[in-house]
């Protein structure tokens, strides 16, 4: 079915109210309308009840006679004009025998949509009514669409508001992670020619690097990382970073006061606003490295001790043990001089005990040294 036919079918179901003090006029109009196909027709000759009927019946179109006793068509138009905003659009087709242009003007000014002059031309009546109802139909459609659009906009606005609140909550969380972190976290752009100045840093940067955020925004890693004096250093790091997406390494940085510190660096690369950016984390490991060096030194000392234990100290002890043992073997001493034999045995046993202790120390040192072999 075409759009036109669909509309026509629709409007034939519309409600029509006819107000005219002359019954013959009403009958005539009703006949014309029935022939066209309209069936929902209400009419009255009593103009005083017109407004009430409009209120209860809610017609889609009003056919209104002007010249009526008591309440005229003009009165009714004037009343309707007052409440026109609160109603759906209701076209008013004015019926009049008065051909005076002034009356027509007045009626139109008061809100009439169109008028028909008596005597009626049948086809004209039908056509005018259909046109007005088509207009109403389209106006109603438009209003529905607008209402629908308003609803959609409302829903969309609510969704956006919820999303905004969630984004704000998340931002608070992430900002906390960023600000509270004890490691220096910073952000900068990167390309083959080198790093840009820092575009963001967290409060820890002041403790770790010595610079405030304002100062850092004017600097780049070239001013901080002592490795950057070598251009290959940057290219090599950049290449690895782009390959794997992240990179861990150690370097020496220069703080604001000139002090050099060992840093563990963790870098991640990602896209930010269409450019390649690096998230960089510096952790000061200078103390850790000092400890490691101290342990290594201690290790070397252990090695020396283990060496000394296992050889240097044992040499004289083994000598003693060998000779004493020989003594006990000599010339049946056990029987000839049991007391002397006893003394010598005691010395020998003590020497063996001492030897055992040295062996244990030697083993422990060797073990400790192995465990710390870094």
């Amino acid at each position, binding site marked *: 079915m075409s759009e036109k036919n669909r509309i026509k079918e629709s409007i034939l179901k519309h409600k029509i109210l006819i107000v005219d003090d002359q019954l013959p006029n009403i009958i005539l109009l009703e006949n014309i309308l029935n022939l066209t196909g309209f069936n929902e027709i209400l009419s009255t000759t009593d103009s005083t009840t017109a407004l009430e009927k409009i209120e209860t019946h809610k017609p889609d179109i009003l056919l209104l006679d002007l010249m009526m006793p008591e309440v005229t068509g003009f009165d009714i138009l004037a009343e309707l004009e007052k409440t026109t905003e609160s109603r759906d659009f209701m076209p008013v087709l004015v019926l009049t025998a008065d051909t005076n242009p002034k009356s027509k003007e007045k009626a139109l000014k008061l809100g009439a949509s169109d008028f028909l002059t008596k005597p009626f031309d049948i086809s004209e009546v039908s056509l005018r009514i259909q046109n007005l109802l088509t207009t109403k139909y389209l106006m109603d459609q438009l209003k529905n669409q607008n209402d629908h659009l308003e609803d959609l906009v409302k829903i969309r606005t609510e969704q956006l508001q919820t999303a905004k609140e969630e984004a704000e909550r998340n931002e608070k969380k992430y900002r906390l992670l960023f600000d509270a972190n004890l490691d220096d976290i910073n952000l900068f752009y990167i390309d083959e020619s080198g790093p840009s100045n820092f575009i963001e840093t967290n409060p820890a940067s002041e403790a770790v690097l010595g610079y405030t955020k304002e100062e850092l925004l004017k600097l780049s890693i070239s001013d901080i990382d002592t490795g950057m004096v070598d251009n290959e250093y940057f290219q090599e790091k950049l290449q690895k970073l782009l390959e794997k997406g992240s990179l861990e390494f150690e370097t020496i940085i220069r703080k604001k006061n000139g002090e050099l510190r060992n840093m563990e660096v963790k870098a991640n690369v990602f896209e930010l606003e269409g450019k390649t950016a690096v998230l960089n984390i510096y952790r000061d490991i200078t103390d850790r490295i000092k400890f490691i060096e101290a342990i290594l030194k201690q290790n070397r000392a252990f090695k020396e001790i*283990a060496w000394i234990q*296992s*050889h240097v100290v*044992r*040499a004289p002890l*083994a*000598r003693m*043990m*060998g*000779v004493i*043992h*020989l003594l006990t*073997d000599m010339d049946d001493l056990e029987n000839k001089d049991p007391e002397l034999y006893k003394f010598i045995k005691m010395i020998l046993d003590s020497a063996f005990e001492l030897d055992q202790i*040295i*062996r244990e120390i*030697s083993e422990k040192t*060797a073990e400790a040294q192995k465990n710390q072999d870094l």
Partner: protein
Amino acid sequence: MNFDLIIVDDDAEYIFFHKLLAKKSGLSEDPLTFSSGQEVIDHLSSIIDQDINNTLIFLDIYMQDVDGWGVLDYLESVNRHDKIKVILITSSVSMDDKRKAIQYQSVIEYIEKPLMMNYLINLKSQSIF
């Protein structure tokens, strides 16, 4: 016994002690003694081309200059393990040293000092060569 005994140790007292034990146990009447790795290498290289006797060496490991390892390396290069055998006698109690020693073909035993009379007596009854 059917072999010559050489005692190598940089500690004179150990040389005296081991010489005494060798005599008393009957292992060897008159062992040769050297107080450094270099000395024994020099001695061996002077006789190596001749038809040498079976030779047992009591070898200390830790000596100045050329140590026991140096002597063992020399013996590996000479490659007369049928004729020259070594018993390491050392004051070291390190497992690493023991493991290292076993790798040398010339080494037939690794003993931690002090050397005991019983051991030498037992050694007599074994056929080393």
